[in-house]
């Protein structure tokens, strides 16, 4: 099966968990995002057809909500919390440290596909501020220096680095 037709059939399987009603557009896109870690163009076209929603409106949704990405994400997704508590405790310094080490800004992915960087609004771990989450693993009370060490561990391929 070609890649395109595979995406089509996988997407249809995801979409068919919902009735073909406009109100499920958001939910279906979320499930696709979860499945592929981004929204492939072919998947969006399939959803548009399934729900009978104009394709351009699907694009409008996909670019409006922060949950979606139109390009593939890296293996490790670094979410730096820039909630208010983290912000006043130095989250910007963490971001500039990441930029120095990995050369990416929020919304970008490293060329080797290893890391994506995102900022998130409050994740509710304010007691540990400033916080970053790397693939669901929380790292609290970070400083630029401690973050550098953590990133080095991920770069070294230690999956469960802490």
């Amino acid at each position, binding site marked *: 099966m070609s890649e395109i037709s595979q995406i089509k059939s996988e997407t249809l399987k995801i979409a068919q968990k919902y009735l073909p*009603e*406009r*109100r*499920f*557009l*958001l*939910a279906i*896109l*979320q499930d696709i995002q979860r499945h592929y870690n981004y929204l492939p163009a072919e998947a969006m076209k399939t959803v548009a057809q399934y*729900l009978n*929603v104009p394709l351009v*409106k699907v694009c*409008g*949704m996909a670019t*409006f*909500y*922060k*949950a*979606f990405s139109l390009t593939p994400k890296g293996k490790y997704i670094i979410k730096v919390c*820039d*909630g*208010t*508590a983290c*912000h*006043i*405790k*130095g989250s910007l*310094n963490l971001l*500039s*440290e990441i930029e120095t080490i990995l050369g990416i800004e929020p919304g970008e992915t490293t060329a080797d596909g290893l890391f994506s960087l995102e900022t*998130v*609004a*409050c*994740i*509710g*771990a*304010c*007691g*540990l*501020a400033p*916080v970053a989450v790397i693939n669901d693993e*929380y790292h*609290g009370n970070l*400083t*630029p*220096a401690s973050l*550098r060490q953590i990133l080095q561990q991920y770069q070294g391929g230690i999956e469960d680095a802490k």
Partner: protein
Amino acid sequence: MQNKKTIFVCCGTGCQASGSMKIYQTMQKIISKLDLDVEVVADIKKTGCHGLCQKGPLVHITPQEITYIHVKTTDVQEIIERSIIKDEVIDRLLYFDKQQNAKIQSKNDWSFEKKQFRIALRHCGCIANDSIDDYIAKGGYQALEKVLKTMTPQEVIDEIRKSSLRGRGGGGFLTGLKWSFAAKAQGDIKYVICNGDEGDPGAFMDRSIMEGDPHTVLEGMAICGYAIGANRAFLYIRDEYGLAVENMKKAIADAHARGVMGQNIFGSGFAFDAEVVRGGGAFVCGEETSLIHSIEGSTGEPTSKPPFPANQGLWGKPTIINNVETWANVPVIISKGADWFASIGSEKSKGTKVFALVGKINNTGLVEVPMGIKLREIIFDIGGGIEKKRKFKAVQTGGPSGGCIPESKLDLPIDYDSLIAEGSMMGSGGMIVIDDRTCMVEFARYYLKFLSEESCGKCVPCREGIKSMLKILNDICEGKGQEGDIELLEEIGSMVKANSLCGLGKTAPNPVLSNIKNFRDEFEAHIKDKRCPAGVCKNLTKLYIDQEACIGCGLCAKSCPTAAISGEKKQPHVLDEAKCINCNSCRERCAVDAIRVH
């Protein structure tokens, strides 16, 4: 069974981030291996947030009422051996209360708890967060039963109106009044919506309630459904709130199984059903009309009011939207009565409010206090004062829609109206404590940047006004501020407030305008003297080490990511300005405050 003990492991997101799930699992493993049935029965419960997130993971044991803080997996064996099998208290794991200058055995006696009053958070931390049995054991669904069996819809609305409950999501509109509009609106299909799209980047109380006590939200919504004649409900929850979504879905399924949701509830003929809609991640979806469009499967752009959702909401039908905390208050008002509720709080703001007390404060966490309490009591009595004994500068409330309350207003009684009078607002309840190391210009810039990304972009005042204001603030923070910038910010800000289409734009300039009003001198220092007094704006900050104060401990050098600090042990260190990137890591580490700002 006489010696039944219950272990409550806090599994709210704050404690989970500190590893509480591993503690819960280790505890289960060890207990299941031990044969405790003879003398002791231990029941382990995974609960929602206890409040004091700073000290997590938290473990609470009843009936002895012992609370342990910062529990590690390596402590679990000892806890079970000494506090479950025996009745000993492990001193090492107790909370040291600075205000009382003593170790305190039970969280109930912490200074943190003393001035709190829990209504919305009444069950958080005290019941298993995935158990309808625990909720019912605490009197859950009795309010719904009372309403269905003994009250008319009009009586329910009258009771809520009499309680003077106001919306806890920000605006503070009278809940009962809103319900009465929807009850009067024509139409046989009506909807109830829970706004769980908590978007304020410094608030997490709604999530804690949904995670820790999901049934109270459902019960509140069902009561409203009966009152206005709606049979269908939607809970719009931020997709990032994975645990809240999961617990809420389970709660709906359990409620169906138990017959408190579905057809003919309590034999009354009333039918009610709810479903969860995961939000797509957009702050503007906290606005009612945007949220409605998002549920309908469109982009979350607001539309003009009128028509108000109570008359024409979801799919054009009368719709009541309240936020999570508001819903959590409803069953209590019905059970204990409007008079009881109205006896709590200030003259025009009744009941309590949950705040996320965060920032430069000793006791970070969720607190619920009666309306009208003084700011000073929240920050110093409950919050335990400013971190590292630094100087209090201001407290920010209302998140991106609010503003800062300066030190001179510490004795302000907190309610909806007093905050608005100070140019801030209640908002959803973020309360960010700021010390002298936070730059008020940069802080205003932070909120504006957030809003520039979160504005839906539909109307020009909000989109272009915020963009222009942000450009000016960026300039000021980078040392490119000009004479007249402050006045221009005020002019554009006042237009954006007046002309914007929805609540996001109408409040967006508040953080900037309020900081200008209260901290104009800091703006002027940036513009005229090209200096950031707080030492935050990198282009305007030069750090140095005070040679008199430095004790040569070397902590600063260790924390420096660019190796800009050098010196011999026990000798004053020096900082190389050329290498320094002004990240303030050294300043945060220094115990003797020897790193100074030029």
